[in-house]
């Protein structure tokens, strides 16, 4: 799975995720990527793109839960993403990248690694796997 989230300097947010799915999946199997709120979600607070084991991500509605924690509990982007990846998705099944309307970035995962990269307007950029 590949995904990207972005925010512009007016705070407009967007997310996009794309995948070939799960190796050896049954023909017709659909995973979390195209399911709004599971692998992909954005609203006025944040944009989220998730990756990992689709069935676990769908059960935990990972992407929407990050936004909901910000919306209803006032969590920061970092707190919300850390809670969902750490508590809601079983260990070893999920990772996500997310940005907030304020330009914050978080890249969380409970697997061994996640191919990830980010850059922000102030010049910060990061590329990592583990």
């Amino acid at each position, binding site marked *: 799975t590949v995904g990207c989230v972005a925010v512009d300097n007016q705070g407009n947010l967007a997310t996009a995720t794309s995948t070939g799915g799960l*190796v050896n999946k049954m023909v017709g199997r659909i995973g979390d990527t195209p399911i709004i709120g599971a692998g992909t979600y954005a609203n006025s607070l944040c944009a989220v793109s998730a990756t990992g084991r689709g069935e676990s991500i769908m059960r935990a509605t990972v992407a929407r839960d990050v936004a909901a924690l910000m919306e209803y509990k006032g969590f920061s982007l970092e707190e919300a993403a850390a809670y969902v990846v750490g508590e809601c998705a079983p260990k070893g099944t999920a990772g996500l990248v997310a940005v907030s309307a304020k330009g914050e970035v978080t890249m969380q995962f409970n697997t061994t690694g996640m191919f990830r990269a980010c850059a922000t307007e102030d010049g910060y950029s990061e590329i990592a796997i583990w």
Partner: protein
Amino acid sequence: MGWAIALHGGAGDIPLNLPPERREPREAALRHCLDIGVRELENHPHFNAGKGSVLTSDGTVEMEACIMDGRTKKCGAVSGLTTVVNAISLARLVMEKTLHIYLAFDGAEAFAREQGVETTDKSHFVTSENIERLKQAKEANRVQVCISHNHVIKDNHKRTDLACYIFGKLCINSKIDYTQPIPKEPTKETTVADGDSQIG
């Protein structure tokens, strides 16, 4: 406030000793895509999307993608694509050009042709690495676990007991010697490369 972009190429049980020749092209691709965005990730065979998508049990490719605008909550999603070069572009057209959110399989392919997005032959998306990975995954699935001893039953396994035989989870060539007690075999932890998307 300021702009920001973050992208991922998949999360999984990525081995810590991933060799440089497999790690470096992925890092270079991430750096390259940081400048361009998600569509370019689909064109890279190192990631499980677009070219480089993993294969179904039939050895075919079925791609899916989704896009969403936070401010308007407009969104588009597609599944079951077999010839569309950039699934994310089609998802965007669903978002912008239809009243719907989600198109799948034949309907999505027909919409792609109607919209004139770039399509290509199905074989374009299949890589040798993913053919090998599917073979591993099928092999991993064919390995049966003996429910009595909780050990992996291999064709050449010699001993088992009545329970295995009754439930049919039996090694094919074994002979049952009812007079002999089954020695307590240490269950060996066998790691079978299951080809699953360890590297995301």
